């Protein structure tokens, strides 16, 4: 089976692997020579599959790019158009970055608060726990675009003094905060739950209040295991800032909409893609690195 796959994917090495396999079964696995051939074969199989899949993937991508007289390439990868529209798109992308940074501050504050209220101990806090749980359930369950639409078009209609007079920019901040603070609260609560209860017990026994023991003892220790998942949600948030295009804010996506009509080309969207990748790929790498470091440290401390 594996030999067939190897031959189909990459003929030259696949054939050698297959002959090694045949030799191994001829010699038998109870001989040293047989086992050596078998090991060689398995190494070559992996190699063949690796080289083969790379060639096939590259080939398939090339096919897509060149098919139908390179229609896709001409639409999305017109270098001239990308170069011409990139400045205005990059300018729009600044709005995406600004939304991300400002919302993030509110999200972290709200997330910590929600997490603390959700794990508040004791019977008197039962309603608070219930309320925050309901909040988290609802906003984790809704698509973020729906939250943005409801907040932007809904709050305006209330005509309430503080809520109806602000700009769309701030409505979006509110919507993103509502949505992402629910996720953040879950991550923070999960991190705090992972710290053994005896740490909180020690803190409480010294006279610290619930909030003090969370602030000084539990959350600092939970921080390490919260970082990577939090960063992953931040990356999601960064991408979700592009949803403001639906309510007409001039972010990178909306500017690309305009430019693609002006230029009669889809290449401006490639500029948007480049902008996002420049931010999200390094963040993803950092998240992975943090996670790896945490695992290593946990192993080290036994």
């Amino acid at each position, binding site marked *: 089976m594996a030999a067939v796959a190897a031959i189909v994917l990459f003929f030259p090495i696949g054939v050698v692997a297959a002959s090694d396999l045949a030799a191994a079964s001829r010699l038998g696995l109870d001989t040293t020579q047989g086992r050596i051939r078998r090991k060689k074969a398995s190494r070559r199989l992996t190699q063949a599959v690796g080289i083969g899949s790379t060639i096939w993937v590259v080939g398939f991508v090339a096919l897509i790019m060149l098919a139908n007289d390179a229609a896709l390439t001409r639409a999305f990868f017109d270098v001239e158009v990308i170069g011409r529209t990139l400045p205005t798109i990059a300018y729009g992308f600044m709005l995406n970055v600004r939304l991300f940074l400002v919302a993030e501050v509110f999200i972290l504050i709200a997330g910590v608060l929600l997490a603390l209220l959700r794990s508040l101990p004791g019977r008197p806090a039962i309603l608070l726990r219930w309320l925050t749980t309901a909040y988290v359930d609802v906003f984790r369950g809704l698509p973020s675009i729906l939250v943005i639409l409801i907040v932007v078009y809904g709050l305006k209609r209330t005509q309430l003094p503080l809520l109806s007079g602000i700009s769309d920019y701030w409505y979006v901040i509110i919507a993103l905060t509502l949505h992402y603070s629910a996720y953040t609260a879950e991550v923070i609560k999960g991190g705090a739950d992972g710290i053994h209860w005896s740490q909180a017990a020690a803190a409480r026994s010294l006279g610290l209040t619930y909030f003090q023991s969370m602030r*000084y003892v539990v959350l600092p220790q939970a921080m390490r295991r919260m970082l990577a998942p939090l960063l992953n949600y931040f990356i999601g948030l960064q991408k979700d800032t592009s949803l403001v295009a639906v309510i007409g804010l001039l972010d990178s996506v909306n500017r690309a909409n305009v430019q693609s009509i002006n230029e009669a080309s889809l290449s401006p969207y490639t500029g948007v893609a480049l902008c996002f990748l420049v931010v999200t790929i390094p963040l993803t790498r950092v998240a992975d690195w943090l996670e790896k470091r945490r695992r290593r440290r946990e192993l080290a401390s036994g």
Partner: protein
Amino acid sequence: MAFLEIRDVHKSYGDNAVLKGISVDIEPHEVVCFIGPSGCGKSTLLRTINALETIDSGRILIEGQDIWAEDSDADELRMKVGIVFQQFNLFPHMSVLDNITLAPRKVLRLGRAKANELADELLHRVRLYDKRNEYPDRLSGGQQQRIAIARALAMQPRMLLLDEVTSALDPEIVGEVLALIAELASEGMTMALATHEMNFAREVADRICFVHQGRIVEQGAPDQMLTAPNDPRTAQFLSRVLAVGMHAKARKGDPEDIAAQ
């Protein structure tokens, strides 16, 4: 008046009744040891005194004040009673100094300098001043436990609860912790200990309570309790732990004990 009064305290976890009507008084400056098999409820009892565990019924009074009464502040009352745990429970992300000063700074609102002064004094007392800037994972179990005691003392409690504080320690370093506890006892600290160290209990305790299946079966002066218990369950428990203790000592090659056999 007794410093601590425990009146008919019941506590269960689901169907599992852990405390089935415990009543005991502890006088100021008294040292009381709770002994008994694992799971008998002695550790739970200590934790209820510190309000770390709620109780199902009964009353716990500290200096005459019910810790669970509507008009009393559990945080305020638990500050009068410090607790030291079997697993030390030092804060691993803080230096030794910060471990000790955290509560004085945040609860008693002492300034940094004042709190450090207090901590240094305690560190001298537990003979670990040179470790003040270390992190807990760099200390031995015995050193960690002495720091935990210093941390509890930093809140200037009137009473100390010691929950099997030597059970997680290697035999050869149990001594340094017990010596510190004996010192505190001789200075007049009111203490309640849950312990398996019978010889130590005999040495420091004013009174020993034998706890069995959530009840105090028998209590009395150490000598009488350990040598001539009245209740057969106490006798059975003692014969078992003392036999094990002797066995362990013999294996370690304590010449005195081997000679005594």
